[in-house]
């Protein structure tokens, strides 16, 4: 159902970087949108994609991967999750709240609501709600079990609903 650029686009060229560049050209737009969703609001999506790509290329080439998109997506989720944990360790709660508040003012909508979900939860919602993957497909893409994806999707929706309702109540006051 979902098409994906695969790594084996050619085997006659000696220059892996050339082929990897071609592969990356095709998968970049989707990866960037994914990174923009999964990463924290103050995290540059291109930085996430770049770091995921760099980590991948240190180990292998894109053309050698069965699913470079899937591999990079999983890497992006891990990086985003690690960054989130590091941020919480580095910053005190008050500082973080102040930062989020500043970001809320910087961005013209309430996109920061999504920051209250984990990176993995955002990835699950994005893949299922926007890219229309089934839970089973999203599970395979993220390296999670089917049940884990279903649970995360349900929990994230409930959590977001509660957040939005709180916001509404607060805004009405």
């Amino acid at each position, binding site marked *: *159902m*979902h*098409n994906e650029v695969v790594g084996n686009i050619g085997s006659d060229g000696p*220059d892996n*970087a*050339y082929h*990897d*560049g071609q592969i*990356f*050209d095709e998968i*970049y*737009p*989707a990866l*960037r*949108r*994914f990174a*923009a*969703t999964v990463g924290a*609001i103050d*995290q*540059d*999506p*291109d*930085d996430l*994609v*770049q*770091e995921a*790509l*760099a980590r991948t*290329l*240190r180990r292998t080439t894109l053309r050698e991967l069965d699913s470079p998109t899937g591999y990079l997506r999983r890497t992006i989720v891990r*990086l985003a999750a*690690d*960054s989130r944990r590091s941020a919480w360790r580095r910053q005190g709660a008050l500082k973080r709240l102040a930062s989020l508040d500043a970001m809320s003012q910087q*961005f*013209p*909508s*309430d*996109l920061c*609501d*999504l920051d209250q979900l984990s990176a993995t939860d*955002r990835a699950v*919602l*994005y893949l*299922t*709600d*926007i*890219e*229309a*993957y*089934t*839970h089973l497909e999203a599970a395979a893409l993220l390296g999670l079990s089917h049940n884990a994806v*279903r649970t995360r*999707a*349900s929990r994230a*929706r*409930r959590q*977001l*609903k509660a957040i*939005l309702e709180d916001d509404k109540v607060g805004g009405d006051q």
Partner: protein
Amino acid sequence: MTTLENKLRARSLRGHPRGSTGVFAAATSQIAEEGARPQLAIASRVAIFGSLTTAAVVAVVLLASVPESTRAIDTSDTPAETTGVPGTPAGPSESNVVDPVPGTPTVSSPTTAVDRSAPRLDEVYDQCVKMAGFDPQGVQVILDDTGTGPWWVKTGFDVPAEIHRPCFEAIGGSDPSRSSHGTRTILASCAGPEQPGDIPQPPLANSPDPALAIHQSATTTTAGQQINLSWAAAGEVIHPVDSLVECWTGASWVPGFTVHDMPARAGASSARELETDTPLSNDESAYTDGTILVHPLAPAATYRLTGHATICATGVCNQATYEVRFKVVS
């Protein structure tokens, strides 16, 4: 659910894309730099995003050396000519710059161009957000920059034409009549006085399992206004898209127009799976709602929206036909 989708879509488009070539070049430069100075590589593993700053600087340096070129603007809703945003200062956008990857062969394909007058994503978005009537909470007009591809317009599912069109024109759309989302071919046979009286009740949903019967709500609206079509089913609901809307001629149903969803991407499924406990539930029952919004630019008439859905409950999936009727009055 539309709000969540809009949030996710808008979030996925935030920032200024550096482009695939720029990111790839920066990543390869990052690796080369770490290889040359392993002590820095170790440091970068300790502070991942500290090293990203260095990489970003490298990328910016690389990008700054790119000669100017031109880039076309395209809009998905209108392939016609485009112009820059009035009042938008012309200038190169980092996100649009394409840089050859160091160490890679030169590709003989046409060079991706950068239009110096092209509005940046945030500028266009800000402009639309500031428009009267635009609801920034809904993020109803979004733009997609593929990084190396053309600009094009995506509209939210529920953006009224009177809000979208000024924005569409402002970003260079030259044919406002094509600004509304979706492609609808309205047949002349749908024009005419609406059916009098109550909306005719449709036959029961064609479900192989009575427990999965789909319930529908009927709505009346005036021409040009939004209409809220909803249905509910026990268990999971599959949100259909590209649904055919027919109109009643007085004797038979004839094709009216098609409601298109915003395509997530090529090859994407035309169905969306929802959880049984999705926040769409409107009461404490076991039912789950699905809601779809269409813009009945269609003439006054009685319409029905039909489609097929796969409804799954307790792991068992069945095909079912749904039908929702609505009336547009003059």
